[in-house]
């Protein structure tokens, strides 16, 4: 039901309906924001990435194939925009996760006890230390619960590659977490 509504809205947007686009935005904006946030761990950046992604989606709507899923397509745009943003930030400054930033953001997200907050900070740090593709796969497959097939479409790689990166990413995170917690 939701899928057919989505298809209808996409058709209307292609015909020029901005009202239909507004409805699509309202349906998908929170998921898109959560995905962007997973990559950048910063509200302002996640907000920019999400807005930029929707604008790109609107501008490219003519190229969108109606038999494809809008959600997967949007996720691909968000992922690519987030990865571009991370590359830009990496060029500008050192590639580290500021402990202060992650601490503040984690407190803003949930009320947790000290041990959970420490673990949360370590997890964010470990996640951001993964190579880009492994990080993207862990976020999309593990945290967002997307299927291997959907992740492969978003990242435009084979399902085998997704599985390999997921396995390596999880292994690496566990190793980094053990070390960070011990240290």
């Amino acid at each position, binding site marked *: 039901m939701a899928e057919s509504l989505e298809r209808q809205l996409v058709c209307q947007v292609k015909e020029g309906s901005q009202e239909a686009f507004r409805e699509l*935005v309202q349906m998908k904006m929170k998921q898109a924001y959560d995905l962007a946030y997973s990559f950048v761990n910063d509200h302002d950046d996640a907000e920019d990435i999400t807005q930029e992604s929707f604008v790109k989606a609107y*501008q490219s709507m003519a190229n969108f194939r109606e038999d494809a899923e809008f959600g997967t397509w949007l996720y691909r745009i968000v992922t690519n925009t987030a990865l571009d943003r991370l590359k830009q930030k990496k060029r500008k400054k*050192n*590639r*580290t996760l500021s402990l202060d930033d992650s601490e503040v953001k984690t407190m803003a*997200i949930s009320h947790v006890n000290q041990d959970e907050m420490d673990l949360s900070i370590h997890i964010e740090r470990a996640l951001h230390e993964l190579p880009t593709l492994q990080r993207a796969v862990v976020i999309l497959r593990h945290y967002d619960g997307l299927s291997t097939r959907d992740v492969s479409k978003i990242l435009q790689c084979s399902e*085998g590659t997704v599985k390999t990166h997921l396995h390596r990413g*999880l292994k690496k995170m566990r190793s980094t977490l053990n*070390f960070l917690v011990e240290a």
Partner: protein
Amino acid sequence: MRHRTVQNLLYDYLNDELSAPEAAQVRDHLARCNKCFGEQQIIKESIRLLQPKQVKPSESLSETYWHNFAVEILHQVQSGAKKENALKLWWESNRYWFLSRKSYSLSIAGGLALVILAVFLWPLTRSVDPEVGNSIRLVSESPDEQVNQELSDYFHKSKILLVGISNIRSEDVGNIDLSVERDAARNLVRQARTFDHKEVDARSRMLIKAMEKILIELANMEERDGLSDVELIRTGIREENMLFKIRMAETAAGARQENSDKNNN
């Protein structure tokens, strides 16, 4: 089933996402293969540690925020559409003028191209490397003598480690024992943590944080690691220009120490 195939299926297997025949094959393999069983334990622990967030980031923002968010996106889309239309309109009304005056059009285009080229090339004419400039400025800062000595020692050891990693030949990777480098990296991470509560200048602190990432990668290397992992670390060292930065920091810390010794004498 091959080991690599089983390992790649472990996540799906632990989440009950495999078909019954596939799950049975994985189960049989795990019963016979210690290595893959070990891998399963690792993935199991990872899944346990990495529970998805209870509260999604979007849920911490108000409905008013989301209403305004959607409005802002529509506004951006509409202003983008208007700009595109304005540009089209301008071109439609002026294109005859440009097409009928080809020499003028070419001159204007040539002039614009020169301006754009100048804007891109200008940064290359800057002679002072900002990294050198920043490092030289460091000399005038003076943290505590003891801290200075510790910083100098830390940067010196980090430099030796990075030079060692950078000099490993590609053909030797996989055949040499990296346990010394790994242990050195772990000691340096511990040493870096001691600076958390000490008075350290901002530049050194940033560099220590940047080094920490590389050191953690090194510390997590297996004793005989694969080429791709070592190459990844070396790429990180090159891209961040870490060797240059560490050398500058070591020089600056040394210079501060000399100044301090002179003042004491």
